[in-house]
């Protein structure tokens, strides 16, 4: 982990993925500081929408080519750590939990001090161990639709909604739905069982966030997160080339 990846060579995508649409409209001049530290990706969304499952899937899809670290704001128990370790998702020393005093949104938006401290400490520790981090995933505790990551904490963010959590949620909107770089409508496989209209969720979401991507997923198998793993690969390339704007999915 982390020793076999090579910054100089672009990765091979495991499946067909058209890059031609990804970078075309992002011709921003490089900004100082950008790309000089690991890329930080926030993953937010309501309780039970599948944030932890998505983190696990992304780790499984990316761990062989990238050095990953995870900072979780979920109420993280030894059991969770053991589950991740048993599944071989990520070694335990690459995962750090941050307590949020019962207010997950405060810790990612209003007062990011504890998360920044934890991220910097974890990244520095792995760097000192000779396994410099490429991407740090910051998982928010489950919260409401207004939760959004501060741009002082992460470079790009994913907001995860649950198909079974009500198909009117994308219409309700809120900063999380509107501002996230990628909106994920997860558990679409459950739609027939809960009477949810996925097409309506996707079109409502698109209306709330014009020009920003909405991705339907089912994470019963980690491959359901393939498109998001590709997005992170593209983000990392853009980040390292000094481009601040996020690429499209």
């Amino acid at each position: 982990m982390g020793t076999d990846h090579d910054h100089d060579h672009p990765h091979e995508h495991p499946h067909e993925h058209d890059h031609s649409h990804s970078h075309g409209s992002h011709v921003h001049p490089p900004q100082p500081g950008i790309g000089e530290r690991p890329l930080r990706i926030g993953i937010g969304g309501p309780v039970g929408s599948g944030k932890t499952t998505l983190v696990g899937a992304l780790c499984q899809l990316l761990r062989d080519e990238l050095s990953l670290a995870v900072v979780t704001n979920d109420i993280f128990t030894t059991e969770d750590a053991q589950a991740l370790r048993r599944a071989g998702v990520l070694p335990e020393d690459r995962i750090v939990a941050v307590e949020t005093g019962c207010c997950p949104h405060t810790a990612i938006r209003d007062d990011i001090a504890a998360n920044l401290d934890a991220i910097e400490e974890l990244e520095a520790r792995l760097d000192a161990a000779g396994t410099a981090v490429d991407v740090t995933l910051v998982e928010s505790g489950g919260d409401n639709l207004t939760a959004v990551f501060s741009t002082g904490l992460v470079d790009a963010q994913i907001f995860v909604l649950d198909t079974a959590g009500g198909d009117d949620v994308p219409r309700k909107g809120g900063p999380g739905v509107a501002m996230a770089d990628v909106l994920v409508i997860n558990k679409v496989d459950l739609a027939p069982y809960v009477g949810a209209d996925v097409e309506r969720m996707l079109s409502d979401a698109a209306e709330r966030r014009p020009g920003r991507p909405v991705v339907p997923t089912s994470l019963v198998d980690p491959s359901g997160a393939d498109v998001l793993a590709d997005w992170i690969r593209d983000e990392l390339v853009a980040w390292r080339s000094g481009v601040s704007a996020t690429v499209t999915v």
Partner: protein
Amino acid sequence: MTSAATFLLADGRFPAGGHAQSAGVESAVRFGDVSDLATLERYLHGRLSTTGVVEAAFAAASSGADDVRLDVLGAELEARLVSPRAREISRRLGRQTMRAARAAWPSDRLDHLARSVGGSHQPIVLGVMVGGAGGSPLDAATLVLHHLSAAVTSAAIRLLALDPIAVLALQVRTLPMIDAIVVEAPVWADAEPAALPAVGGALTEILAQDHASWDARLFVA
């Protein structure tokens, strides 16, 4: 001071990670030491007169201190924190305060503290920050106890669903106690670091150590 800066420093939204601190209340609730308004008030009195006095004294003593004195104060405060966990938390909070302080009131003294390995202890960073903002030793000591009172009470509101208006009245009842503690601030400002109060509660440290071993925590400490 009583300037606009005072209110910024006292604001619960000050972005230094204080919102996730319970000042031991999460432990106290689990062990049944705090369960209602009466026991919360007793707990707050206990913290103010033990760890509160020590931290207020070191903040007051740091507010106008030069680099040499700051280093001695750091070592003296370290000696007063017996539990490794209490030391770790104090340094972590110091780093978090430092981040905001250097952006808000940058100074050579803050830069000096930032260079110490692992970061400086919270009360010392806070004292230097208050000094840099134009505040007095009295302001620094008062601010420490204000934030301690806020951490204890807001954590109790969240963990026990207490009535926040009744809790506010409780805080007001403890104000004379805070005022009585901080009258010492001018003395602390010039005192030999070794002579500063050393009355941190043993139970506080034991509970902090135990809290660190929990399988799942809502608050940092």
